[in-house]
């Protein structure tokens, strides 16, 4: 198991090299000049060229990229073109907020979707099943931007019971953004849980358990759910990875100070070091989440654990 984990961690290196190379290339070759953007409209050509020289932008692409990778290996993610702060400061001051939001969203999604998925599967074609699937459809269909604003209008403006944005109110500030961000994941996890439960509860051993008189709750929770969880865990892991990098709209609507907004603003400003810093962190998080998912498999399904030995 430990060798497997170390192998997976080492695999991060080529992944990160690939991600950084592709992103650096795209940022370098797109139209626009970061120096010109930084200096703004008052800039003279001389000042633009001077700043380009200071920023090393006149060097060949491969030299710039090699310099970036060399610095990254020494723990230096570079300097933000816009603020002049260390990229590591820019990124890590916002990273915990993104993680908090992603965890809040996935907790909401899992807490809602697994019970709905289980009940929908065990009471297939019932009114509950139909309602559950409609909720899932709504969750994946509603734009998060719109959902967020509607929740704000209801809970902040009309009812006045929850804040409309920011992080000032701690846990209460997390509720609406979590629901907004988790809605789409909730839909996906619900449907996955339902379909995998349906497959499992039709197995012979489940019929045997019922025939033996095992209480239905035990049949579902102890015998069915654990086997049905593997696809759910897989999807949850993928969703978690996506949530870490895809919370831009939610962060914007709720003024949540996360990395999503930083990434979008940096792309617009051609702030390459910050873009790379964000994407490196996202890539690492995605890989780690997938690794955790793989490890969880071993605990859920003993057959998989045997493969690691």
């Amino acid at each position: 198991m430990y060798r497997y984990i170390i192998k997976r961690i080492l695999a991060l290196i080529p992944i990160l090299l690939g991600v950084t190379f592709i992103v650096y290339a795209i940022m370098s070759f797109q139209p626009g000049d970061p120096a010109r953007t930084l200096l703004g409209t008052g800039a003279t050509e001389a000042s633009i060229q001077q700043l380009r020289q200071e920023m090393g932008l006149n060097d060949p692409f491969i030299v710039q990229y090699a310099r970036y990778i060399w610095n990254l290996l020494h723990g230096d993610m570079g300097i933000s073109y816009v603020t002049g702060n260390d990229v590591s400061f820019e990124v890590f001051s916002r990273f915990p907020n993104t993680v908090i939001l992603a965890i809040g969203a996935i907790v909401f999604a899992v807490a809602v979707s697994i019970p709905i998925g289980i009940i929908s599967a065990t009471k297939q074609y019932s009114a509950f099943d139909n309602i559950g699937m409609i909720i899932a459809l709504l969750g994946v269909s509603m734009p998060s931007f719109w959902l967020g604003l509607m929740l704000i209008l209801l809970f902040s403006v009309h009812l006045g019971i929850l804040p409309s944005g920011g992080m000032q109110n701690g846990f209460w500030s997390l509720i609406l953004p979590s629901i907004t961000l988790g809605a789409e994941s909730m839909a996906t996890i619900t449907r996955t849980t339902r379909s995998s439960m349906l497959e499992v509860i039709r197995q012979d051993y489940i019929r045997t358990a019922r025939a033996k008189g095992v209480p239905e709750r035990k049949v579902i929770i102890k015998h069915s759910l654990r086997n049905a969880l593997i696809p759910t865990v897989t999807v949850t892991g993928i969703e978690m990875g996506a949530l870490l990098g895809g919370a831009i709209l939610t962060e914007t609507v709720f003024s949540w100070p996360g990395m999503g907004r930083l990434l979008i603003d940096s792309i617009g400003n051609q702030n390459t070091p910050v873009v790379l810093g964000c994407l490196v962190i996202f890539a690492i998080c995605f890989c780690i989440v997938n690794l955790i998912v793989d490890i969880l498999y071993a605990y859920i399904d003993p057959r998989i654990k045997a493969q690691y030995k």
Partner: protein
Amino acid sequence: MKKILSVLLILILSITVLTGCGGDNGGENSFGDTLRVGSIGDISTMDPTNFSDLQTQLAITAVYSRLVKFDKDLKVIPDAAEHWENISDLEWGFTLKEGIKFSDGTDLTAEDVKASLMRAKTQTLVAHIVAYIEDVDIKDDLHFVIKTSKPFAALLSNLADPACSILPSELIESGNDFAKNPVGSGPYVFESWTPSEKAVFVRNENYFDTENASQFEKLELRVIPEGSSRTIALETGEIDINTSVLTSDYSRIKENEKLGLYETTANQLYGLFFNETKEPFNNLDFRKAIEYAVDKEAVIQASQEGLGERLTSILPSAVVGSIDAGYTYDVEKAKEYLQKSGFKQEAGKKFVIRSMSDMNTKMAVVIQGNLKDIGIETEVAQNTVATHMEQCGQGQFEMAIMGWATAPDPDRFLRPLFHKDSLGTNNFSQLKDDEISKKIDDAVGIIDETKRKAAYEEINRELMDEAHVVPITGKAILIGYRAGLKNVYQDGVFGMDFNTIRY
């Protein structure tokens, strides 16, 4: 079933108990000790010579003083300077107010002014603002003379720029990082900054302008990037001021008795620029046809709900040299000029109107319709800011909507946009007119107000007669605030004096 009902009952009771937990509203007309301001973006630095965004400008002017500043009508008024006079063509004498202290307790003297201005000359981002300042001759702690390299009537306007904020000379010499450790003599002192969330300032108890000391103990600049969210935060009382109300929220705030709205227009030129190196934009009659074809009222209605000043020339009304160039919306006249130009619309050919924001695109779409009415086919292409600026600066466009906001100094409009030295940067029209460039160079040195006005009016009229740009409007500035606050305003260069706000 009973269990489900019990859970539902608990939820409903919880929601009832939670009522009122949502915001830190100080009540309808009561205010806490903190002025909470909702801003569209985050501050980027506290170094006054290293920023170019408007949110940071609000923070900079809260913490630092300058020699002079603008009032809400963009007239230059005293800040740290008590008095000034134009001694000669190249010399301006200043007298500082007595007893000004920095937030670290040290006295503000002429030495600090000199060190700050000389430092600004070395900073790439702002050097052009102080380019004409050659030296500062110190007479004593309170008196000094600024020497310029050439006669420069706009010196005061440039000294009002936040880039000319006064910093302690000792800290400059010691290499202090003002971005993280700002020390100024403004109405507030920097306390903390949480990236993407908020910046907090406390009242400067040693502020020299005691009459205008802040009534609030603290100032909080909160980042709320989404316009609707800012309006909602204002309505729920989570913020006291919204510095950037969307034009689409204008009526909503105007009709809300619990809120107030301050409106003005930015000192800005939003216009349709032509790349005159490409045909047929090098044809004067073709450009004049477009001048008469554009329905500016419709463009302003579509892009800003009808809000914002309708421009009649390149220079906005607050700028010396502004004129009425006489172009009106006249489709028949436009068609006449188009015919005179000899232009024939080719089948399948469309000119591209470039834009860099949703507001620009709305303008471009209306103009597209106007041009279609006279027989010119176009399409609209929106890019990111960086790409748009690069393409327009390098002349890789046909027509483009560009915005230009700056201090109320005609040179700050005309030189970057039309001087031949600005080719490759902001001379979007790609104009290589030696005569205009010389007139711009000569005008900057005219100190006499009457002659200066006449000179700039002449340049403005000449540029408008040549139809180098279709000036349309400036951005509508809408500031929403909780009723009960007084003296809330923003000047045309997006500056706000939070310390003068009262409740």
